[in-house]
């Protein structure tokens, strides 16, 4: 790294911190207005990128990268995505700080379960090092042991607990206590049976071609999934889409109320 670059970076840092100090001098009402403005501008960028047709230039000055697909804002979407990813990445430290506080306190005050907190720290540090240094020969073994011996099987085991839970949930939920529960049960039964040979046996005597083939349990299951299920999910989706749009609109225009919004600074 050359000295000039280092100086540039350091002065950038000073500039940034100076900027923050200036921001701090804003009065309460100004802060609020600044936030409303920033929210609006941030949303406006994505709105404009969508609304301006491909080929739009910035007063003829900034041409888009691909005239047939992009407008002049399009290439910035990726840049902004990158910046957000990096900035969001720095926030990870907040989570880390929280974990370290909770477990550190347990550990140093030797509260009940301090062994677990110790295990947490050891596992975290070892995995961080192994992950960062996995190309060094000495760390390959550590990485493999931690990754294949613990991390992966732990994840797979937690995931597979779902098989147990889906069984007890089905046992409790699928009772014919109401018309709705019955319908849900019948649909689940058909689709479940269509997945296993024992279920397929029920209708295997039917031909695989012609109209009678559509009475095979796989066909019925497929029909439930691709016609009824698809249509119902599509309709739910339209509602969710409208709700999403409405809430986005409120957030964008700072019309949102509630705990985090509209607070005095």
């Amino acid at each position: 790294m050359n000295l000039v670059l280092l100086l540039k970076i350091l002065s950038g840092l000073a500039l940034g911190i100076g900027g923050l100090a200036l921001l701090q001098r804003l009065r309460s009402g100004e802060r609020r207005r600044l936030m409303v403005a920033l929210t609006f501008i941030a949303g406006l960028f994505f709105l404009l990128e969508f609304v301006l047709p491909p080929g739009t230039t910035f007063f003829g000055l900034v041409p888009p990268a691909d005239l047939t697909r992009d407008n002049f804002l399009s290439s910035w979407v990726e840049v902004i995505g990158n910046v957000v990813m990096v900035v969001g990445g720095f926030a990870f430290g907040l989570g880390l700080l929280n974990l370290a506080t909770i477990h550190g306190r347990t550990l140093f005050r030797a509260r009940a379960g301090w062994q677990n907190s110790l295990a947490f720290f050891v596992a975290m540090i070892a995995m961080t090092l192994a992950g960062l240094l996995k190309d060094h020969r000495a760390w390959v073994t550590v990485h493999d042991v931690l990754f294949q011996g613990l991390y992966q099987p732990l994840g797979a085991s937690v995931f597979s607990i779902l098989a147990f839970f889906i069984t007890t949930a089905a046992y409790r939920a699928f009772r014919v206590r109401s018309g709705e529960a019955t319908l849900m049960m019948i649909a689940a039964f058909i689709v479940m049976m269509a997945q296993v040979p024992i279920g397929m046996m029920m209708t295997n005597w039917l031909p695989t071609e012609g109209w009678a083939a559509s009475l095979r349990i796989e066909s019925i299951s497929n029909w439930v999934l691709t016609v009824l299920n698809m249509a119902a999910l599509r309709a739910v989706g339209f509602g969710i889409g409208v709700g999403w749009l409405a809430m986005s609109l409120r957030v964008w225009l700072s019309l949102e109320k509630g705990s985090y919004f509209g607070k005095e600074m």
Partner: protein
Amino acid sequence: MKDLVIVWLAAIATLAIYSILYKENPIYRFFEHVFIGLATGYSIARLWSDVLLPSWWQPMLGGQWYWIFALVVGGMFYTIYLPRYAWMSRLVMTVLMGMAAGIAFKGFATLYIPQLAATFRPIFSPAPPYLLVNNLLIIITVVAVMTYFFFSFEHKSRAVRGTASLGRWLLMIAFGAIFGSTVMARVALLTYRLWFLVHDVPSRGIPHL
């Protein structure tokens, strides 16, 4: 030797997780903490090597000095611990929220309009009759389910009430189908875990003398 350690660690870890099915216990608790520790370490390593190193550190040292501002902006998150400056963390947050909101206009179009257009199907035509029945059912389902989600009427009129409850029934069929179609995938996960315990552990975990 390494393989032996891996197999046995994996076996113990698996059993420790399953032990919560009986009840919460110190062994589960221990492995839960180990897991969260490993996951945190894994995330740190991935964050550095997949995000910060290639998208921030390298470009910055490559001459794009202005990437240092990302650190300053990222630092603003940490003001939540300083009451006098805490509002600054909200400043970053509002920008992120504004973005999340602005994306919705495009998202609504690309996610839902193609689905809307795909529903424009004839319900009567000289084409094969079963397709038409399906088209009709799809339209009825979409209309009924959407009616169920109306909020502004207490479903007073009989037509609306009837359509809405039809919508709810159709929804339940759909949910049942989703439930049923997920069972095999989940059971298959468990099957492989159990296979590991009853087959791989004895065959790979016991050294052949």
